[in-house]
C-alpha cells in the first residue's frame, strides 16, 4: 500500500508539472486540444492525491508499523477516530493533507469553469498547477509520509523493519476537535489560493473588467468562512485543552492563522469598491497576493519552527523550500504588477470623507495595521536578532495595546460603514440612520456600567455592540417595511423575503451580527477571575456565585491511558447545577500526560475547572477554578458568522419589487438603491 500511495503521489506531481508546462504552451499556441488535455491533467491530480491519502489511511487502519509516519502518530489501542485524523497530526501528513484540500478546490474550479472564460482560465490553470507542484515536491521528495523504517544490518545490507507498536498520537491532539479543526483551518489556508490565482491570472492576461472579482467572490467567501471557523476552533481548542483558562495567547501559530484572516477580510470588503466604483484596483490585487503569501507564511511558521511556540512542531529541513517559494511568489507578483500596472488604473476618485468609499478605506487601513502589528509582534525575535543582534520577544501587552483599540474602531465601522451612501452622505441621512442606534448604545452603556462593567474598553465595546446591533436590526426593519407595503403579510415574512432577494447584503449583516457577538464575548475577558486551592474530599471552594464541593478523587484505567479524576459538585444558590470531572491522563505508550478541563458553560459565564495535579507535600488534589464571563458568546458568534456566510452564498431571488422601489419618490428610495445588487446598481451610478 505504501508503494501504491507513493506512486500515486509521484504521478500527481508529473500531472501537475505537465499542467504547468503544457499550460504555458497552450496559452502561447492557443491549441484547443492541448488546452483541454492540460485541464484534464489538472483535474487528474485530485484523483491521484485522493488515492495517495486513501492508501495512507489504509496503512493507519491496518496498523502497518513499518511506515515511519504510522509509527509516530498511531498505535494499536488508538481509536478509529484518531487513527483517521492521525493523517494530519504530523508534518508529512499535514503537508499531504494541504495538497489534498488544494486539489479539491482546484478540481472544483476547473470543473465549474470548463469551457468558459477561454481568455482567463488557461492562466488560472497554470498558476493553480504551479502552486500544487510546490506542495507535491514537498510530498514526494522532501517530506514523504510513506517513508519506511530501515536498519543497516551486518555487511551493510539494508533491512526493512516493522515495529511491534506505534508511539500514538500526542495527547494534546487527542481531543474531538482534532477531527474538525485542522481540516477547517487548512480549507481556509488553501482556499485563498483560488482568488489569488484568478487575481494574478487577470493581471498577467490583462483580462478586461472586474470579471475576476465576480468570479471569485464566492470562492473568497468560502475560504474566509473556513478560515474564520479554523481560527475560532483553534481558540476553542486552546481553551478546552491547554487548561490555562484562556483562549488566545498571541502564540505564533495562532497569529499565523489570524493574519490571512485579517487581510482576507480587508480584501472581501475592498473588492466592493472595485465592483461598484472601479476604484482600488492596485490595492485589491496586492491584498489578494498578500493574503495568499500570508497563508503560505502561516503554514511555514507552523511547520518549520521558525519561531518557538507552544505548538512547536518539528524543526525541519523544509524551511528553505518555503523561503524559496515565498520569494518566488513575490517575484512573480511584482513582475506581473510592474509589467501590467497600467491595466489597474482607477476609474473614479474619492469624493467625500463621509462616504461608503472612505469607510472601506478606513476599514482596510485598520485591518492592515492590525496585521502589521500581529506580524511584527510575531516576528519580533527574528527581526530584533537581525537588527540588534539580540533576540527580544514581546508579549500579550504589546498585542493588546494595539489590537483592542483597532477592534473597537472596526466594531464602530461595522455599524457605520454599510449605512453610508456611496460617494457622499448627507447630514440628514446620518441623523436618520444613526440617531436611534447611537442613543440605544448609550443606554446600553448606562445600564452596563452600574452592573459592574467598569473597564473602559469593555464599556466602549458594550456601547458599540448595542449600536451596531441596532443599526443592523433597523436595516432589516426598514427594508422589510418596504416589502410589506408592496406584498402585504407580516413583518417577519417580509424580512425573510427581503433577505432572500439580496442575500449578499443581508447575509453580510448577519455575519456582522456574529462578529458583534464575538466582540461581546471578548469584552467579558476583562472580568475573568480565578482561584487555586488544595481540595481534599469533602472540602469546598467559593468562586463567584458558585460553590465547588470535592466529592471524590479516583484513578481509572481506560484503554490507552489512566485517568486521575476528581469529582466535583458545582452548586449555585445551594442548588446543585452540575457535576464536573476534571482529569489528568497518563498515557502508557507515549509516557505523556494530558489535562482534561471540565467546563460548565452558560450564556452568562463559564465555570472552568482544572485538576492541576496533587500537592506534592500533602498528596491532595489541587483544583484551579476560573470564572470567565461571556465566553460562550464567542462560539455562538462563530456559528452566526457561518450561517451569515452561507446565506450570502445563496443566489438572490430576482429583485423585481426592489427595482420598483427605486422609482418610488419616497424617503425609502435611498435605501432601495443601496439594496439593489450589483447588476442593478450599475445603472444608478
Amino acid at each position, binding site marked *: 500500500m505504501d508503494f501504491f500511495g507513493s506512486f500515486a503521489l509521484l504521478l500527481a506531481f508529473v500531472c501537475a508539472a505537465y499542467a504547468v508546462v503544457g499550460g504555458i504552451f497552450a496559452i502561447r499556441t492557443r491549441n484547443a486540444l492541448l488546452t483541454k488535455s492540460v485541464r484534464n491533467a489538472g483535474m487528474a491530480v485530485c484523483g491521484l492525491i485522493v488515492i495517495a491519502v486513501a492508501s495512507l489511511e489504509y496503512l493507519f487502519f491496518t496498523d502497518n508499523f513499518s511506515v515511519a509516519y504510522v509509527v509516530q502518530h498511531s498505535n494499536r489501542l488508538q481509536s478509529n477516530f484518531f487513527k483517521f485524523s492521525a493523517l494530519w497530526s504530523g508534518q508529512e501528513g499535514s503537508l499531504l493533507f494541504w495538497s489534498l484540500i488544494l486539489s479539491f478546490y482546484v478540481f472544483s474550479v476547473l470543473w465549474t469553469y470548463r469551457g468558459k472564460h477561454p481568455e482567463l482560465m488557461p492562466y488560472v490553470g497554470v498558476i493553480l498547477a504551479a502552486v500544487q507542484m510546490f506542495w507535491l515536491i514537498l510530498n514526494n521528495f522532501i517530506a514523504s509520509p510513506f517513508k519506511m523504517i530501515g536498519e543497516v544490518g551486518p555487511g551493510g545490507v539494508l533491512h526493512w523493519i516493522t515495529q511491534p507498536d506505534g508511539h500514538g498520537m500526542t495527547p494534546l491532539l487527542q481531543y474531538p476537535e482534532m477531527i474538525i479543526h485542522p481540516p477547517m483551518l487548512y480549507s481556509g489556508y488553501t482556499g485563498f489560493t483560488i482568488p489569488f490565482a484568478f487575481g494574478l491570472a487577470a493581471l498577467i492576461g490583462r483580462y478586461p473588467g472586474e470579471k475576476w472579482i465576480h468570479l471569485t467572490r464566492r470562492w473568497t467567501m468560502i475560504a474566509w468562512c473556513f478560515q474564520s471557523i479554523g481560527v475560532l476552533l483553534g481558540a476553542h481548542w486552546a481553551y478546552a485543552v491547554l487548561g490555562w483558562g484562556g483562549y488566545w495567547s498571541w502564540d505564533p501559530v495562532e497569529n499565523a492563522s489570524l493574519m490571512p484572516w485579517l487581510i482576507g477580510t480587508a480584501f472581501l470588503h475592498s473588492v466592493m469598491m472595485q465592483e461598484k466604483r472601479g476604484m482600488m484596483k492596485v490595492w485589491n490585487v496586492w491584498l489578494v497576493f498578500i493574503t495568499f503569501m500570508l497563508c503560505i507564511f502561516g503554514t511555514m511558521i507552523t511547520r518549520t519552527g521558525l519561531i518557538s511556540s507552544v505548538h512547536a512542531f518539528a524543526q525541519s529541513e523544509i524551511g528553505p523550500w518555503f523561503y524559496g517559494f515565498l520569494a518566488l511568489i513575490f517575484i512573480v507578483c511584482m513582475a506581473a504588477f510592474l509589467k501590467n500596472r497600467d491595466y489597474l488604473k482607477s476609474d473614479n476618485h474619492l469624493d467625500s470623507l463621509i462616504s461608503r468609499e472612505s469607510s472601506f478605506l478606513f476599514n482596510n487601513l485598520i485591518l492592515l495595521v492590525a496585521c502589521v502589528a500581529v506580524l511584527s509582534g510575531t516576528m519580533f525575535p527574528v527581526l530584533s536578532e537581525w537588527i540588534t543582534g539580540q533576540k527580544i520577544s514581546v*508579549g500579550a501587552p504589546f498585542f493588546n495595546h494595539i489590537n483592542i483599540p483597532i477592534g473597537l474602531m472596526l466594531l464602530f465601522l461595522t455599524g457605520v460603514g454599510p449605512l453610508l451612501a456611496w460617494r457622499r452622505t448627507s447630514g440628514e441621512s446620518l441623523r436618520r440612520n444613526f440617531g436611534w442606534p447611537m442613543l440605544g448604545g448609550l443606554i446600553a452603556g448606562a445600564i452596563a456600567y452600574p452592573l459592574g462593567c467598569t473597564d473602559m474598553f469593555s464599556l466602549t465595546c458594550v456601547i458599540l455592540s448595542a449600536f451596531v446591533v441596532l443599526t443592523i436590526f433597523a436595516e432589516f426593519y426598514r427594508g422589510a417595511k418596504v416589502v410589506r407595503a408592496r406584498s402585504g403579510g407580516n413583518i417577519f415574512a417580509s424580512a425573510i423575503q427581503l433577505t432572500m432577494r439580496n442575500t449578499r447584503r443581508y447575509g453580510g449583516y448577519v455575519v456582522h451580527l456574529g462578529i458583534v457577538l464575538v466582540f461581546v464575548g471578548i469584552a467579558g475577558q476583562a472580568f475573568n477571575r480565578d482561584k487555586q486551592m488544595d481540595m481534599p474530599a469533602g472540602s469546598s471552594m467559593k468562586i463567584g456565585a458558585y460553590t465547588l464541593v470535592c466529592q471524590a478523587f479516583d484513578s481509572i484505567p481506560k484503554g490507552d491511558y489512566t485517568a486521575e479524576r476528581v469529582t466535583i459538585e458545582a452548586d449555585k444558590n445551594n442548588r446543585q447545577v452540575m457535576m464536573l470531572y476534571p482529569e489528568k491522563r497518563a498515557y502508557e505508550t507515549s509516557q505523556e500526560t494530558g489535562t482534561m478541563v471540565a467546563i460548565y458553560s452558560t450564556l452568562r459565564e463559564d465555570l472552568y475547572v482544572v485538576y492541576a495535579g496533587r500537592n506534592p507535600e500533602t498528596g491532595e488534589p489541587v483544583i484551579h477554578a476560573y470564572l470567565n464571563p461571556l465566553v460562550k458568546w464567542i462560539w455562538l458568534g462563530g456559528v452566526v458568522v457561518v450561517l451569515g456566510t452561507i446565506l450570502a452564498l445563496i443566489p438572490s431571488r430576482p429583485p423585481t419589487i426592489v427595482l420598483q422601489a427605486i422609482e418610488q419618490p419616497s424617503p425609502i428610495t435611498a435605501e432601495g438603491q443601496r439594496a439593489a445588487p450589483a447588476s442593478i446598481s450599475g445603472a444608478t451610478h
Partner: protein
Amino acid sequence: MNTKTKFAVGSGIIIITLVTLGWVGARESKTYYHLISELPTLKQSDLHQRMRVSGNVAPGTIKYLPGRVEFTLVEQEKTLNVAYTGQDPLPDTFKDDAQALVEGKLGADGKFTAEQIQAKCASKYEVAPTPIKN
C-alpha cells in the same frame, strides 16, 4: 482641504496613535532571550531585564516546595537554578529531560525566578531507527 488630504490626516492620526500604543506595549512586555552561558557575562544594567532562558530539565532536580517548584536547567553543560513561582499549573510536558523555556528575572544570587514556563517533550522519536525512503 481636499478629501485626499483629509483622509491622509485621518490615517496619520490613527497610525501614530497605534504605533505609540504598540511602543508602550512593547516596552512593558519586552523579554530578552539569553543562553545560560551568556548570563554571567551580562552587564549590571541588563540584569533587570525580563528574560527568557531555555534548556533541558536536569533529571532528578525537580523539587516541589511550598509556593514554588525548583529545578535545574542545563544547556551545553552550563547549569542554571530556577525557582518557578507562577500561578499557572505546570505544563503536562514539564518533566525530567524536557526542553523548557522559562520567563522571569535573574536574581543577584544567580538564581532565576520564573513566572512562566513552557515545556516541550524531549523528542524521543529521534532515537528510533532512521527512516529511509523506499
